[in-house]
């Protein structure tokens, strides 16, 4: 099929962004990741005759396991390696970087804030984990978070410079919270309340967007029940 691709380009953090439009032939099963690789390997011009210089983007696993290739495709945050052209149901593809983070170059954004947020909520075990039948499924699902940032794209309450951390923090936190034995005081509990519970509007826009298919809603209710209602999974 012949598609028209509109890609948001930006040479550096400071540079002005602009759209570049090009026409490309591929079949329906082609992923956006393959598309980007092929375009980068080819020498082509855009529709106004300007050369298409190498498009900067990030990838690593190419099988939806690492979160590197998250970008906005026809308005939705998705993984490029997991998005087939045929699924988009349009022969006009619009590719943009995630909008909640500073752009580094083209489709590469600086997601450092995700790491900083997990540091700020003390996302680590202060005591030895307790793993049992009650929490293994939860810990497994929470541990799958790719730190891709797709959920933040759709969260009405998240901005990169704010104190509300959203799903990319509460999903990992739900593992820690589920594995800590019951205690009066944990730093993560205090920080969780401050940076997640108090800021989340529970609109659950983040729910169906996770490319890893994590049940985000359950993670939120699980961590709320431990951090806010002190319903720990284990007494040690």
């Amino acid at each position, binding site marked *: 099929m012949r598609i028209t691709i509109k890609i948001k380009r930006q040479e550096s953090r400071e540079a002005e962004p602009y759209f570049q439009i090009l026409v490309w032939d591929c079949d329906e099963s082609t992923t956006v990741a393959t598309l980007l690789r092929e375009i980068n*390997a080819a020498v082509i011009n855009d529709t106004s005759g300007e050369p298409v210089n190498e498009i900067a983007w990030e990838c690593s696993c190419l099988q939806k396991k690492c979160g590197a290739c998250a970008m906005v495709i026809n308005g939705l945050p998705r993984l490029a390696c997991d998005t087939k052209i045929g699924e988009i149901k349009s022969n006009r593809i619009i590719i943009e970087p995630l909008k909640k983070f500073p752009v580094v170059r083209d489709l590469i954004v600086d997601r450092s804030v995700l790491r900083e947020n997990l540091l700020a909520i003390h996302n680590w075990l202060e005591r030895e984990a307790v793993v049992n039948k009650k929490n293994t499924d939860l810990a497994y699902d929470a541990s799958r978070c790719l730190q891709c940032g797709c959920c933040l794209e759709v969260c009405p309450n998240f901005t990169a410079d704010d104190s509300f951390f959203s799903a990319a923090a509460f999903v*990992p936190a739900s593992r820690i919270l589920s594995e800590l034995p019951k205690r009066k005081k944990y730093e993560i509990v205090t920080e969780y309340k401050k940076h997640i519970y108090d800021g989340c509007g529970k609109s659950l826009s983040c729910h169906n967007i996770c490319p890893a298919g994590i049940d985000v809603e359950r993670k939120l209710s699980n961590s709320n029940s431990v951090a806010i209602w002190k319903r720990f999974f284990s007494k040690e």
Partner: protein
Amino acid sequence: MSIIIIGAGLAGLSAAVTLAQNGVSSNLISSMQSERAQSVMAEGGINACLNTMGEDDTVENHFEDTISSGMYLADAEAVRGMCAAAPGIVERLGSLGVPFSYNDKGIVQRSFGGQRKKRTAFVKSSTGKMLMTALIDETRKFEAQGLIKRYPNHCFIRLITEDNKCCGAVVRNTYTNRTVSLRGSVILASGGLNGLFDGMTTGTTQNTSDAAATVFSQGVELANLEMIQYHPTTIAIQGKRLLISEAARGEGGRLFINRNGKPWYFMEEKYPELKNLMPRDVVSAEMVQVAAMPECDSQVYLDMTAIEKNVWNERISDLREQCVHYLGIDPANKPIPVSPGIHFFMGGIRVDREHRTSMNGLYAAGECACQYHGANRLGGNSLLGAIYGGQIAAQTAMKEAADNTEEIIDIAEEPAEVSCGFARTVSEILYKALPILRKEEELIAAKEELNLLKSRAGNRAELNRLNLALAAVMSAIERRESRGAHKRTDYPDRDDVSFKKQSVAKISGDKIDISFKEIKGRRD
């Protein structure tokens, strides 16, 4: 004292945490953040003799399976150390919250290739991701204490050396292009040499092989580069090969090929003891051979249709989803077509038992290093080797490190990268020359082609890539025997007298030298 770690996969994290537990600080450099490292992709599990499955497993069994599958090409004492430490490592992972399943004896284990006992601890088919999440969170604890300083999106450029001593590294922030030099001893944990086979491996695009190529060009010895593992069950997908984890066979999957129109379970017939779970080098070579037989079709299938429902649900649900997603086949109902693909590099930076390289002040661990796996790696031993190797490298580096004051100096240096086209060309030559069954003419032809490419190398990085590729081909030429993953049609037998040794590649000037050295625990 501050130590520089290049790579934040399992080996790098393990080294950083070990240092931090001893109060030693580190700078943890990685081309991307840890969630993007290849370690998150590991599926089937991690080996340790926990003896929880009622099979009287022993550490000695683990040692024997490892050393014999590796065709006696690994340092026995090092392997012994790893196997002995394994149960402690896996139990510690449990206490860091890895959601293993438990029975009344402890962590549940599964069968894996080349092992006579159920010895592989797992979380479904996502073991690497689970281990990484736990270790990333543990690392974060020490980041908060200021003991680990992360430099994600930083690329290793080169070592700073003085008279065969490594005193630091130059790294570049790929987001800002700022290039700096850091002082301190260096632990390399930069992963496997995937970039040599661009787009042809089961692993990540991030492991470009540039780090190993660079230190090679700086005079560091590499070993056993010809030992490249083809995993028997992979499938070509866009841009790479998709792994169908050995867990598929560990949980009951069977390989067959149609012979005269009827399914032939060739592995079961030929190897009645371990059947489909023979070591990977054996299975892959058998697959190539049966597919070439005139009475057989050319496609081998993996049949998982007899696996029970609860096993699918509890142990390999993610593997099933992967097949449905990428192949459009539900493996519970229909056999899937599979073929061998490049998966792991047993060779790499030559290290001694303490993980010292041939250069003072430089250590290496994880898949970038040559240790533990000999001529063929057992599934489940690489996650273990990465964690254990990271620990040992950290302990040695700590012992030997001089008290350095931390200094970060800006450096003006033009970035040099291997272009896509150049990488492709090198990969195609290598892929042709280094298949499962190798021939001298093809190897020599590849050496000539690579030599001719030298004039086309546009920068330092491309020249380094080329030299690494040449070293791999030359090592394969010089090892005139068949052993483990290195199988030669012109030398089909094992030759212990000449070759129960490491092939060692070293560069001086622009001359690459390949020699065979005894497998010694201590560096000479």
